[in-house]
């Protein structure tokens, strides 16, 4: 993992000292809220529906046990004993008091963490594949590139006042677990003629106007990558619309300008930028790569196979939550933060400490946060899986549902968020409880349900196999359903199914969709998404709106009678 240099520590200490003074000036009355707001947002501090919220960056979702323990300590000391892991691999504290925030930031700095650029019109926390450095099929570990981008973008003087926020994701795997196509810039590391480089996508994004990113460059070699990215952001900084907040993201710039013209402008900008870098970025990248060396893996699976064969509950847990590791005696274990009925993405301080202990004892001291709001032990020897399973079970963390119907992404929604138009969390809780009661989700198989509590789409509903969008319709919560979305390498925006559902109707509607899928799938191997792609929306719409189907049949009969 990357370790902070003295420069990093000094920078952070100075920044935190500045913010402490800004907080004092706000409380003392010498800063107005209009003056203070951009300062607090630059440091990750929002004011939400019921309280302040501090959003802490977990760069590319990677952290060690000391960092996780510190997050737990902060939750206990200054919050309400838990944290919420987000769809951008961050953690949010929902209840800090203004006066405590500088102390929280100092506590974060002690373990090389901060909340800088987790808000505002800047380049936000860079996200990456949560299986980075462990996945069997990976071309290259994306985290050194992500760390390079983090360092370049943090406090970058040219990019502190962009037209709008700017999100970058990096994957080193063709499976694209980082949803790169839904980011302002998505980087897919690829190998060409033995050389590592990146396919650069631009102009993806969800929100009010969802768009899939377009390929700006098929291959940018690593030595050119940072100046190329700088050229892209510089072009956007000049062209991006500042007259209309809803048209300010780069996806609109690309849409209005055209990808070919954007490419021409970027290439024109690239030359001078490249010359100015003088190779310093590659020297830095080499040092960063050295920090991300793989752990010293120890071979031997112990009695894993026998335990796996003997205990069906353990077997179900492993088969559902574990993924193939590049070392045959290791596994990548996803710990679900989606126990049925729990708030998606929330972990108590005790759970955080347990995960830290397990990572330190068994997992080469590494943890990951996924954009799907789960925690990952990326390097777990199979011989320790049983001990880890038992420990997780005792802490309510052994739910075997990763990738299934109850592994739901949900934004905080109107339970916390000031922008939300409806609640997300209780809808997610009730869907999970329903599927648990039905004992259906393992039979259903892979299914991604994603819920957003407003059009901004923090819950990624557009790329859910089933997406749910909570809206305010004439003063009542109403939930629109989209179908067939996909956040993978061939990302697709879901299709809106039809009229929305009331709060107390939406769980039944989701059950009808899933039962329709079970009735029409070819076989147990055909997933929900495959079935949707094969048969189209019609049978799912019929399941969602049976009254409309009845009306249509009645009208057909009327016409037949009339004839």
């Amino acid at each position, binding site marked *: 993992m990357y370790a902070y240099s003295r420069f990093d520590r000094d920078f952070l200490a100075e920044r935190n000292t500045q913010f402490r003074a800004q907080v004092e000036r706000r409380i003392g*009355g010498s800063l*107005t809220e209009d003056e203070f707001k951009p300062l607090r947002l630059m440091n990750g501090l929002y*004011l939400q529906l*019921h309280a302040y919220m501090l959003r802490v960056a977990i760069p590319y979702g990677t952290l060690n046990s000391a960092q996780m323990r510190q997050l737990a300590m902060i939750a206990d000391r200054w919050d*309400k004993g838990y944290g919420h892991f987000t769809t951008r691999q961050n953690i949010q504290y929902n209840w*800090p*008091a203004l006066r405590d925030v500088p102390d929280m930031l100092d506590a974060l700095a002690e373990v090389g963490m901060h909340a800088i650029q987790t808000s505002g019109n800047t380049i936000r926390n860079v996200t990456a594949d949560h299986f980075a450095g462990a996945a069997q099929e990976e071309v290259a570990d994306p985290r050194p590139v992500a760390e390079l981008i983090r360092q370049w973008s943090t406090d970058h003087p040219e990019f502190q006042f962009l037209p709008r926020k700017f999100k970058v994701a990096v994957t080193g795997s063709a499976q694209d677990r980082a949803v790169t196509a839904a980011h302002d810039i998505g980087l897919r590391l690829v190998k060409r003629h033995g050389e590592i480089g990146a396919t650069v996508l631009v102009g993806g994004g969800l929100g009010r106007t969802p768009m899939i990113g377009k390929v700006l460059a098929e291959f940018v070699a690593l030595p050119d990558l940072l100046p190329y990215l700088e050229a892209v952001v510089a072009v956007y900084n000049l062209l991006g619309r500042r007259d209309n907040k809803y048209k300010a993201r780069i996806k609109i710039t690309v849409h209005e300008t055209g990808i070919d013209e954007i490419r021409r402008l970027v290439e024109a900008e690239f030359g001078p930028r490249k010359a100015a870098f003088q190779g310093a970025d590659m020297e830095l990248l080499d040092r960063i790569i050295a920090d991300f060396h793989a752990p010293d893996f120890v071979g031997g699976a112990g009695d894993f196979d026998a335990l796996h064969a003997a205990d069906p509950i353990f077997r179900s847990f492993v088969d559902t939550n574990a993924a193939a590791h590049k070392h045959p005696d290791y596994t990548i274990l996803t710990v679900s933060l989606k126990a049925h009925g729990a*708030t998606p993405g929330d972990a108590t301080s005790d759970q955080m400490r347990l995960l830290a202990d397990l990572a330190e004892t068994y997992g080469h001291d590494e943890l990951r946060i996924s954009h799907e709001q789960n925690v990952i032990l990326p390097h777990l020897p199979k011989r320790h899986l049983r001990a880890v399973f038992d420990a997780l079970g005792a802490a309510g963390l052994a739910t075997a549902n990763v990738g299934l119907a109850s592994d739901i992404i949900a934004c905080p929604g109107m339970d916390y968020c000031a922008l939300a138009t409806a609640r997300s969390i209780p809808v997610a809780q009730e869907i999970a409880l329903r599927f648990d009661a039905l004992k259906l989700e393992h039979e259903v198989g892979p299914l991604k349900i994603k819920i957003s509590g407003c059009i901004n789409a923090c819950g990624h509903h557009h790329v859910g196999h089933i997406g749910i969008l909570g809206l305010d319709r004439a003063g*009542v919560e109403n939930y629109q359903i989209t179908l067939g979305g996909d956040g993978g390498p061939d990302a697709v925006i879901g299709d809106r199914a039809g009229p929305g559902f009331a709060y107390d109707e939406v769980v039944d509607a989701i059950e009808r969709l899933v039962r329709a899928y079970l009735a029409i799938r070819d076989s147990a191997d055909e997933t929900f998404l495959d079935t949707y792609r094969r048969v189209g929306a019609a049978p799912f719409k019929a399941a969602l709106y049976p009254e409309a189907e009845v009306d249509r049949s009645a009208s057909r009969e009327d016409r037949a009678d009339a004839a």
Partner: protein
Amino acid sequence: MPRPFTPKVVTANALLEGDVVYLTRFGDWTRNHADADLLEDQATADLRLLEAQALAHEVVGPYLADARRGPKGPEPIHFREAFRTRGPSNYAHGKQATLQADGKQEAQ
């Protein structure tokens, strides 16, 4: 014909804690919606909002929210404002805990 005026309360978030507060008829802030001053005409509502905006050292972002007269005091109309009176639905971490203890929570 002009639309009838919907009564309002002045609401904001407290500067230090960030929690939801309402302006009372005495010009101070309460955490309990039922203790808010119900403003029944536009001119008074605008005036009280200006008064609240001058209290920038106490609160953030004051605004007028629709409300109606209830048996124990003003009640929120929109569901967002109803949530703000009590806190999130997934944990009793908001003001609902205190209000329940005080027996002041409105029936929702």
